[in-house]
Structures are given as structure tokens and as C-alpha cells.
């Protein structure tokens, strides 16, 4: 597999405070990468920098060896859900259609090809029957699926999903996992930030462990070692009977992760065998 995405010494700061320091990373074409780390580790910041919402203070990002500006829609980003005006009078179809807008496309009417892509994206996430419903009338899980469909409709090189498993119902979690399996077959590269270390270990080829700098990157076996977890989570980690237990604050106050049995009352307990993987 050739390298699709390359980050070289990426540094990002928020008003003078360094949020990410000198992160270097390569992601092969078609890989599925879980980004994990404690709250404030810079997972969302990394995504925002990758789509150009925050400028890089230093370093560079390359896609197939070229800067992202060379591509029409290099990266699609699905943020955590509360960043949108839900009372806005748009239908599900309208929202997904926005994925077809972009550079040089702001005035062109939707072509038959665009409509086909929108229809397929809606189908993929199982929300076709909601196409004419106002976005505000949908459940949280359905809304999340609509935004995933929009990301698909963008036909990007890379899809970034920020905490897609946080605060959603089981059905949506399953839909996201199915989508990931689907995207794997189509060799679409996906980066997912998550608090769920179990999921990161079991469903992803690559794991990136962040805590404002890169702690470790590689296969789950390589990344989830006691020393790496100690470096990332520090005091949030305890070793009991040779097992590493990470007590991680879930999701910045959005309630427990839906559907994970490792999650209790706003905090996640995630177990990993010290020094080796579970799978």
C-alpha cells in the first residue's frame, strides 16, 4: 500500500498555547486509523487542522505527496454533532447535497450524476426514506447518519470522524461500524477519534495514541503497551493483576458511550492486557 497521507512535524497552537506538538504520521491508502488519547489530547485539534479549520503553526500535511490545496475535496470531516443549527429549514436531502458543493461548484445546478451520488450515500446509511424530512425532526442517531452520508457524498480521499460512537444509539453505532467495513472494501481511508480503546484495538488496523504529541502509532499490538498508555493517560491508568485499566473521562460531559459494556456512569473503564493485545 502506498502512503496516502503524510503529516510532517505538524504543530498547532490555540492563542499561544501549543495544542499539538511536532506530530509526524504516515497513513497508507485505504487504512482505517483510530485516534485515541485522553481529553484535551488534541484529537479534535488534529482533525480541525487537517481540514484547514485551524492553521498549522509549523510542519506540513501532504496527500499523495502533494499539499491538500491541489485537490478539490481532499478531506471530509464529520464533527461532533452539536456544531450545527438544527432548527434550520433544510431537509435531509438538502444537507447531503451540500457534500456536492465546493470549489467551482457553487453556482452549478446539481447534475444527474450528483443526484445519483446523493441517493447512493443516503442508501448506504439507511436514511433514504427520511430524505424529505427536516433535519431537526430526526433523532440524534439519524442526524449523525445524515452527516456521514454527506461526508460520503463529498467523495473525499480521507474521511475524518470525530467521536462517531459518542452519545449515539446502538443502531447508529452498528451503522457506523458497517460503514467502516464497507469503506474498507472500497479502500477509502478513514481516521476515527474515539474514547473506546476496546473498539480501537478490535476494529482498526492502525492506532495513533496522542497526548498533545505523538505517543505511539502502529498496529494495536504495538501501541497498547503499558508504557505507552502510562505516557498518554498517566494518573488515569492503574495496573491491576497484570492488567492495564484505563479510567477515561467519557466524551467531555456528553454522557456515557452508547452501547459499550465497558462504560459506566460517565466514565469508561477499558481493559488491555499489559504489554500485549487482546486479539
Amino acid at each position, binding site marked *: 500500500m502506498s502512503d496516502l497521507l503524510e503529516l510532517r512535524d505538524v504543530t498547532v497552537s490555540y492563542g499561544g498555547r501549543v495544542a499539538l506538538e511536532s506530530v509526524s504520521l504516515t497513513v497508507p491508502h485505504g487504512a482505517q486509523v483510530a485516534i485515541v488519547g485522553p481529553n484535551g489530547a488534541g484529537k479534535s485539534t488534529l482533525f480541525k487542522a487537517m*481540514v*484547514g*479549520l485551524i492553521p498549522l503553526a509549523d510542519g506540513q500535511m501532504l496527500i499523495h505527496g502533494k499539499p491538500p490545496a491541489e485537490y478539490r*475535496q481532499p*478531506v*471530509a*470531516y464529520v*464533527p461532533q454533532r452539536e*456544531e*450545527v*443549527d438544527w432548527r*434550520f*429549514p*433544510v*431537509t435531509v436531502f*438538502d*444537507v447531503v447535497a*451540500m457534500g456536492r*458543493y*465546493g*470549489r467551482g461548484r*457553487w*453556482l452549478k445546478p446539481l447534475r444527474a450524476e450528483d443526484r445519483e451520488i446523493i441517493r447512493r450515500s443516503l442508501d448506504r446509511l439507511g436514511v433514504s426514506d427520511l430524505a424529505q424530512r*427536516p433535519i431537526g425532526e430526526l433523532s440524534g442517531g439519524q442526524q449523525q447518519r445524515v452527516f456521514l452520508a*454527506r461526508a460520503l457524498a463529498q467523495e473525499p480521499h480521507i474521511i475524518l470522524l470525530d467521536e462517531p460512537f459518542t452519545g449515539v444509539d446502538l443502531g447508529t453505532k452498528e451503522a457506523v461500524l458497517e460503514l467502516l467495513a464497507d469503506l474498507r472494501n472500497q479502500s477509502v481511508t478513514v481516521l476515527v477519534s474515539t474514547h473506546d480503546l476496546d473498539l480501537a484495538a478490535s476494529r482498526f488496523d492502525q492506532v495513533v495514541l496522542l497526548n498533545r504529541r505523538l505517543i505511539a502509532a502502529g498496529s494495536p499490538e504495538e501501541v497498547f503497551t503499558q508504557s505507552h498508555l502510562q505516557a498518554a493517560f498517566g494518573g488515569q491508568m492503574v495496573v491491576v493483576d497484570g492488567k492495564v485499566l484505563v479510567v477515561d473521562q467519557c466524551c467531555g460531559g456528553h454522557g456515557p458511550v452508547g452501547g459499550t459494556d465497558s462504560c459506566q456512569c460517565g466514565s469508561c473503564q477499558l481493559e488491555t492486557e499489559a504489554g500485549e493485545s487482546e486479539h
Partner: protein
Amino acid sequence: MDWLTEPFAYGFMQRALGASVIVGVVCAVVGCYVVLRAMAFLGDALAHAILPGVALAYLAGIDLLIGALVAAVVVAVGVSFILRSGAIREDTAIGIFFAAALALGVLLISTVDTYAVDLTHVLFGNVLGVSPSDLWLSGGLGLGLLLAVALLYRQLLVVSFDPVLGRTLGLRTHAIRTALFVMTAVAIVVSLRTVGVALVAAMLVTPPATAYLLTRRLPAMMALSAAIGVVSAVAGLYVSYYLDVASGSAVVLVATGIFLLAFLFAPRRGLVLRSFVFRRKNRRLLTTR
């Protein structure tokens, strides 16, 4: 039916009708974004901020609308610039501009001898004083605005609904916001003669808010809002003619009446139906128990 046609035997009433229709459409369409982006306070502030421009134009003897237009654009860009710096909160920035511009405007107008009458016209409109050149200027600006709304439709939609997506798609969100401020300012200038500075915010907010209650997509909201704007403007004109009351007030009160009807009886969002459905559900719950 004579009462419908009678007023328009006069040239000034025909012009008043034309001006009212233009205001009804333009404010109602641009106002959709004012409502959806919660910019009502900004609309009010922009309206008052054009007073100094009007006063200066009056003192210099040039067309009042041109003075208003220049002032409106300057203030729209100015507020947008201050917001971009991020040093103070939005409503604070607007509040400062709002009061300062009103003070400056009244100060300038008070140097004119006949200021009480003129100030009343500027504040509350004098639709019967619309000159042919006013009408042409309003019509031209109005058409330009509708064209801008059409050309920027997708950009404004994306930036208003999901600014994060807008930026990832490469939109210059600050520039688009400034454009929207300028468009709002121009809509206010167009309305100056008909409803006046003090009441124009209502034309920007009330018809779109009514349409919002009754529709579920932005294009439909804009179309219905325009229709409500026109009906209010024309009906207000009749009321003004026959009862001999201020035209701006009449127009705004008609629009408010339509809003209240929609607020109470809208099929999905209306108060009456919602409480009816709620009661029915409750009764069902009680009987099944």
C-alpha cells in the same frame, strides 16, 4: 370595489404601492437570513446607523437614499470588521454602534430648522412622499439584492447552517458574512421611505418568522415570506390611506397580525394544534390505563 381602486387614481399612491411591494419582497427575502442567523438586533442597529448618512445628505442637499446607502454599507463593513477581531462580543459591538449612530444622526438632524417633521419621516416613513427617482433607485437596489441572494444562495445556506462545513469547503466565511451584512443594510435603505428607520427591523423579521412557522425548506420559506411581506405592505397602505395613519406603523401591524395567526394556528409548529395534539395524547394515555 371602488374602495380598492380609488386610492390609486393619484400618482403618488401608485408610487407608494410600487415602493411598498418592493419593500415587502426585498426585506422578506433578505430577512430570512436575519431570522435564521438570529441577527434581528443587528438589523435594528443597522437601521439606526444610517441616520447620520441621511442627515449629512440632507445638509449637503443630495438624495437622502444615497446618503443612507453609503452610511449603511460603511456600518455593515465596520461591524463585520470589529466582529472579526474577536475583541468584544457581538451584541456589545452592535450595541455600541447602534447608540452612537443614533446619537450622531439626531445631533445632525437637530441642526436643521424643520427637524421635527423630517425626523418623523425618516424614523417612521412617509410612503406618500416617494418620488419617481426614489422608486427607480429602490427598484434597482431591490433587483440587485434579489440577484445577490440567488447567486450566493448555496454559500449563504452552507455558512448559515454549518459554518464548519463552509470552511472545509474553502468558503471565506468572514467575507460572506460581510456580504450578508451589506445586503441587510441595502434592504433597510430600500425600506427607508416606506416604513422608516424605527420600524424596518420588523419588516426584516416578522414576515420571515411567520414563513418559518409554515414551511420546512429555505426556498419555500423565502417565497412565502415575500408573499406575506407584499400582502402586509399593500394592506398596510390601504389602512394608512383610509384611516389616515402613519404608513410604516400600519404595514408593521398588519405583518404582526399575520404572524400571530400563524403562531397560533400553524399546522406543525402552531400553539393551538400542539396543545390539541398534546391533550389528545394525554386522553389516550388515560383511557388505555
